[in-house]
């Protein structure tokens, strides 16, 4: 009888695990994407971490748009990998994420593909004039980036994200590195 109770307790305690795993994408599946990467940026911010971070964004008027954006977010996940040579990552390693975005109620709103580069932007609708998240998959010969933001967003927040909002710009540094890598190749 004791054994039955023990087994039942074990089964009941493990039951929520698969459910929890289904709630969102498992970003560990993207780990192999960056195995050969020279530079890695792995950011995982759940709602608790976002709350902590929001507390340090400042109380001034300038940071107000950023604070209001972050307040509605549930999680931010970024995986960005830079490689020294082309062909150091496998495009098929992105398939689990693409498959997830197809299954869950996500809409691909942008897909831009050229010979070497591709960009995809997905949005998750959540009721009238609201979004449940945004996902970006960007791949180049020597760089691959995945951004996954979940939470309560307004469509104009996406425009805000493209703007400044007091966020420091990292784009120029990356461009410099890319130009240098191209020059090294030549």
């Amino acid at each position: 009888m004791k054994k039955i109770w023990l087994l039942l307790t074990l089964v009941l305690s493990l039951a929520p695990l698969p459910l929890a795993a289904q709630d969102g994408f498992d970003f560990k599946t993207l780990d192999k994407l960056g195995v050969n990467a020279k530079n890695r940026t792995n950011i995982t911010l759940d709602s608790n971490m976002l709350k902590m971070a929001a507390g340090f964004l400042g109380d001034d008027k300038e940071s107000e748009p950023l604070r209001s954006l972050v307040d509605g977010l549930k999680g931010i996940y970024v995986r960005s990998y830079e490689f020294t040579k082309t062909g150091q990552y496998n495009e098929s390693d992105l398939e689990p994420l693409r498959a997830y975005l197809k299954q869950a109620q996500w809409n691909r709103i942008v897909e831009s593909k050229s010979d070497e580069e591709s960009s995809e932007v997905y949005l998750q609708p959540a009721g009238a004039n609201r979004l449940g998240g945004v996902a970006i998959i960007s791949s180049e010969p020597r760089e691959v980036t995945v951004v996954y933001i979940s939470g309560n967003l307004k469509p104009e927040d996406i425009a805000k994200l493209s703007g400044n909002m007091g966020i420091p710009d990292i784009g120029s540094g990356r461009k410099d590195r890319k130009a240098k890598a191209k020059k090294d190749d030549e």
Partner: protein
Amino acid sequence: MKIHEEDFESELRAALRAEAPPEDFAAKVLARAAALSPKPQVIAIPLWRKPAAWALAAGLAVAAVIPPAASEYQRRRELRALEARRELLLALSITRAKLRQTRERVQKNTRRIL
């Protein structure tokens, strides 16, 4: 014979007459009783065997440990929050860069098609 009887009677009367006790009689009786009664035995317990001493020591130890621990916890929490803030800004910065890049790619492709 009668004379002898009277003497005896007067002697007996004299012997049995009520006599007032001396003034310090009560004090003497009490002192004597106190001297005869067994003294309560005082057992000396070492300080380290007294529960109250242990409780006091534990209280002092806790009082000494808690404030630095709380301060360290607060400091670590602030460091984590600052790190989270740095990661948040970096994540949003990458998001912005990628959204802009996507827009530029779409514009470039559109121009190519046109």
